[in-house]
């Protein structure tokens, strides 16, 4: 899906838990996330801490979207 969205000319970031799969399928901007069952969260943290963590990851994804790259890049 990432690849078809990018092929259409839209800048896309893949935020995912298993980076090797993302690399193999051909995503160009990759942001590694926390864990498979909770990529944007951590149930061991308090809700407030978890929210901060989530926001930081989203900010990293936005940074990836605004960064020029020439090849596949893991942020």
């Amino acid at each position, binding site marked *: *899906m*990432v*690849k*078809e*969205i*990018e*092929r*259409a*000319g*839209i*800048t*896309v*970031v*893949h*935020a*995912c*838990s*298993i980076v*090797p*799969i*993302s690399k*193999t*399928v*051909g995503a*160009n*901007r990759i942001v590694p*996330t926390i*864990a*498979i*069952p*909770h*990529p*944007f*969260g951590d*149930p061991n943290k308090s809700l407030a801490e*978890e*929210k901060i963590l*989530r*926001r930081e*990851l*989203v*900010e990293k*994804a*936005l940074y990836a*979207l*605004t*960064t*020029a*790259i*020439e*090849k*596949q*890049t893991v942020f």
Partner: protein
Amino acid sequence: MASKIKVIHCLNQFFGGLGGEEQAHVTPRLVEGAKGPGMLMQSIFPEVEIIATLIFGDNYVAQKTDAAVEQVLELLAPHFNDAAKDQQAQLFVAGPAFNAGRYGLACGALCKAVSKRYLIPVVTAMSEQNPAAAEYRRDVYIAATSDDVTGMEQAIGRMVPLGINLLHGEKVLPETDHYIARGQRRNYFSSQSGAERAVDMLLAKISGQPVLSEYAMPVFDRVEPAPAIKDLASARLGLVTSGGIVPRGNPDRIVSANAQNFGTYSLNTLDTLSKETHQTAHGGYDPTCANENPNRVLPLDAIRELEAEGAIGSIHPYYYATVGNATSVANAKQFGESIAKKLLADGVQAVILTST
């Protein structure tokens, strides 16, 4: 009777009988004898004896690959070096993993490491569509399988003879031994020079005859990176997920594995996702955390916050969701194309796609 071939078989928590996604975090462990598909393996191939089964949690190996590999190598040590003859492993067999991405990656990584450390033949099996096939086919012999478990008998029927051939030092070929081509070339003597063969091919091509190249060209389907977004504060952002986040009740009945469709869901009045409004339909991970707080898979709360602060121009009023659990590449490609059209029509310039 000749002694049996001593095999160590490697399975994930599901096939190893430990449990489903709730056990996907477990660390590798070694148990005596055959489990699950290993029983079938021994009944089809009586010349094989599974002396031990290594069982690991899918998530654990996919996320902590290096640590997991080290633990596995240590667990296996008693079956090498000074092991008693009846406990000495001769062949390492992993899977079959079919089209399961995490399982496939684990099989590939463990096979590669075992072969390197203990110098015995290793073999695994998975679908050519499995992302791990592209990652490991150069390092490991991977028998080609169907996409799902209905092909279990065929997978074992390919994987075990391949392993036995490797153990006996027999020559193997992808065409006859049904493994995924490793990208290696084999030298042979031909009575015709390369120039003659090339001209023959050219003539055949001109006259419309079928031509088979001696050097298969790899198919690279890569997309050039799209340009960076210059000003996110004025850009329109779209949200897509393969993590299966859907409105409660799963109105489009997106199936938990091998998805056949994607859903289009309104974000118009939403600032966050909650267990009252949304859930996951994904069958490939433990849904507890995602159901409790769906923002953990599709982080709408944080995205709305950044939108309100002006960091993001605007958000496309719908999000698109499917289940990326053993979903075929062909289906995913088609979903991606349809979603891209909808996004373009609304002037979306940037997308965050989240996956579990």
